[in-house]
């Protein structure tokens, strides 16, 4: 299957996207956020909560921020305290949590010793992350990478132990990827809850303990079924980079991570999101965590045919932001979706055209294909038919990461049997239509070729417009998902700050250094 795309146009689209993101990156480079700082704290191994249940990373950063020290970066303050008190970062944090002292009030230690401490802490943290990454890469190699499209299912009971039961069941049925859906509105929390959680609705809290529990369960299953099983969670919302950090620590394989999703769909402040996404992606690039971008969401709130080019446009922007974080294309789960109203005449041809366009524009990436959701109804049988065609388009157009549609999408988060039915549907279609993509050509100037061409052309026009007004203004204009967000509004704006002259973030610097040097 092949699209006759104008390669000059493709190149042009990429260049425009690069220029657009270059502009934003200049802005990003000058700033940091509370969450970026908490990320450093977490990478230094600080975990746990204080007596009021506030996570220590929050206590530590708040301590420094409230005393106006954060412009220098949290690393310095922690190292300084470690030296001054001869404590480990965790001990320092616990003391701060107990209000025994404030980091900013500790006497500044000798610069060179603090610098050495920073290096030492950074070195050992990075080593630890590298070890985790290496172990997973080896496990993947050993057990073998399943065929694409990977079968990706979600668990969403709200209770991590129930999630484990269902995830294991799904793996034994054939799931390659388990995503633990986060509890509703967790993305608006400006902290990561602590410990294993058994209450949540619409999903389970993303906590480090929950990550660990699920990782262990999946590794056990992987050994049993002789197939590597990937674990996914969400790095978006107000704790984007921190979630990436704990995911790296706990050996997750994938994260939902988009450069604009939080802005558009969670009304998170633009600056906050742009700065946060960069750090979170850097961690993903470093730790070989595949990101899943969120373009599928645009065509939930806007028309999937008329606005198809907004998906393409955003994919190209997401790609550029990922490249800026040093990410190899194979870790880019470029998002898109099968979301056209099933009543549309030739809807399937549009879906094929759009899916093939994504696949063709990002040949090295691992596109993440999302199932029908918005036009799923209480007719579970019809839903099963919609999912059948979705599965077909996916295998036919060679998608990589294939999130399974649930026949009960319009009703509830998946029951154990819903997942089983979804997996068996996908396995049936993938096998039954295995070589279809190789065998089929679309007529030159036919429906599919023309539609793909049109979407690409529209994307280029849109990129030109965005280039001229800037990405932020474009978002104000409501280009993506028909949603408009203002530059200075949205949640978490107060968590963004301009770095001081003496700002230092050793984790970021070290990771960038390694990622850039291709040392990986």
């Amino acid at each position, binding site marked *: 299957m092949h699209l006759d795309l104008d390669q000059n146009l493709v190149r042009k689209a990429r260049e425009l996207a690069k220029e657009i993101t270059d502009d934003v990156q200049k802005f990003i480079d000058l700033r940091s956020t509370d969450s970026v700082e908490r990320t450093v704290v977490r990478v230094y191994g600080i975990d746990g909560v204080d007596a009021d249940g506030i996570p220590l990373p929050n206590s530590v950063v708040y301590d420094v921020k409230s005393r106006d020290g954060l412009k220098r970066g949290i690393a310095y303050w922690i190292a300084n305290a470690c030296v001054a008190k001869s404590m480990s970062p965790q001990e320092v944090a616990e003391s701060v949590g107990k209000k025994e002292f404030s980091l900013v009030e500790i006497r500044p230690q000798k610069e060179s010793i603090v610098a050495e401490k920073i290096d030492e802490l950074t070195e050992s943290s990075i080593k630890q992350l590298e070890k985790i990454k290496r172990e997973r890469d080896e496990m993947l190699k050993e057990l073998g990478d399943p065929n694409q499209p990977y079968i990706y299912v979600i668990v969403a009971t709200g209770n991590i132990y129930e999630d484990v039961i*269902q995830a294991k069941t799904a793996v034994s*049925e054939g799931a390659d990827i388990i995503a633990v859906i986060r509890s*509703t509105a967790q993305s608006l929390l400006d902290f990561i809850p602590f410990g294993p959680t058994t209450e949540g609705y*619409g999903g389970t809290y993303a906590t480090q303990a929950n990550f660990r529990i699920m990782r262990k369960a999946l590794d056990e299953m992987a050994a049993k079924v002789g197939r590597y099983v990937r674990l996914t969670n969400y790095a978006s919302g107000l704790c984007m980079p921190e979630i990436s950090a704990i995911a790296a620590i706990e050996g997750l394989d994938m994260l939902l991570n988009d450069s604009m999703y939080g802005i558009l769909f969670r009304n998170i402040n633009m600056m906050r999101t742009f700065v946060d996404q960069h750090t979170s992606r850097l961690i993903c690039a470093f730790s070989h965590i595949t990101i899943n971008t969120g373009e599928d969401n645009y065509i*939930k*709130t806007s028309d999937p045919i008329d606005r198809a080019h907004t998906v393409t446009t955003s994919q190209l922007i997401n790609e550029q932001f990922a490249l800026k974080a040093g990410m190899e294309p194979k870790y880019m789960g470029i998002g898109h979706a099968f979301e056209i109203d099933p009543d549309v005449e030739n809807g399937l041809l549009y879906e094929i055209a759009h899916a093939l366009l994504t696949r063709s524009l990002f040949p090295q990436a691992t596109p993440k294909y999302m199932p029908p959701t918005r036009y799923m109804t*209480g007719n579970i049988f019809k839903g099963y038919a919609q999912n059948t065609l979705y599965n077909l388009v996916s295998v036919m157009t060679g998608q990589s990461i294939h999130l399974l549609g649930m026949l009960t999408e*319009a009703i509830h988060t998946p*029951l154990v*049997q819903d997942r089983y039915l979804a997996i068996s549907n996908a396995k049936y279609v993938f096998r039954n239509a295995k070589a279809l993509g190789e065998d089929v050509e679309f007529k030159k100037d036919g429906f599919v070729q023309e539609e793909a061409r049109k979407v690409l052309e529209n994307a280029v026009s849109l990129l030109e417009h965005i280039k001229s007004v800037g990405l932020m203004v474009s978002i104000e204009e409501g280009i993506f998902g028909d949603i408009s967000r203002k530059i200075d509004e949205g949640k978490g704006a107060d968590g963004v700050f301009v770095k001081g002259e003496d700002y230092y973030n050793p984790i970021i610097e070290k990771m960038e250094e390694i990622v850039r040097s291709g040392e990986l």
Partner: protein
Amino acid sequence: MIPNLDLRSIKPYGDQANDGMIQLSFTLPVPAGAKAREAAKTLIALMGFSDIQMVLSEDIGGDFTFFVVYAKTNKYVDYTSIKTLEVEIPKIVIEEINDKISKYLKRQVVIIGATIGSDAHTIGLDSILNMKGYHGDSGLERYKAFKVYNLGSQIPPLELVKKSREYKADVILVSQIVTQREIHIKQLTELVDILDAEKIRDKILLIVGGPRITHELAVELGYDAGFGAGTMPSDVAAYIADRILKKSS
């Protein structure tokens, strides 16, 4: 209706009148096999089914067995005695609504809408409120008779009540999509409690909508009306106009 149907005892119709045929599917947390099948059959029989055909009993991993069953129920319903609690929607259309409101109320009806609490789903509410409407049926913003404020999603009930005072709202429209672990009940109750506490419940026409909302549930929770899956904006408009006009007269 099919011929010779006794409406005092209707039963499901599969192949023939009153055969009582029902399809069921479910999972038991026990390993597949004869014992699982027997357990499933026993369960189904307890519900009053006979002629139980267990057409699928499949190992779905993790010691779970999934069943598909066709069976005949011995239950029936007296259809003649069924009473329904329905929203009464008068047959008035946009022009008529605009005319009547301007004639009798002599001002716009102020409507405020929001998805409350943790719920971030706006598409449903937007379909009712936005110009564009739903499946070709215009939304309330299109009506001259209405002044609409759409607050969007994840609005705390307290804030909604505050805004409704500020805008002097006649009508509050709440959307609730997420129903897992009964979160919608909690959030909807919270809103009513606040309105009660502030003693403004009577002054306001309080409406809730969402795919799992029924009018019955809405009334039970203290709302004036509830609108479910596939609601058309024009129905909501007609209901509002009718109630506001009745109230004001």
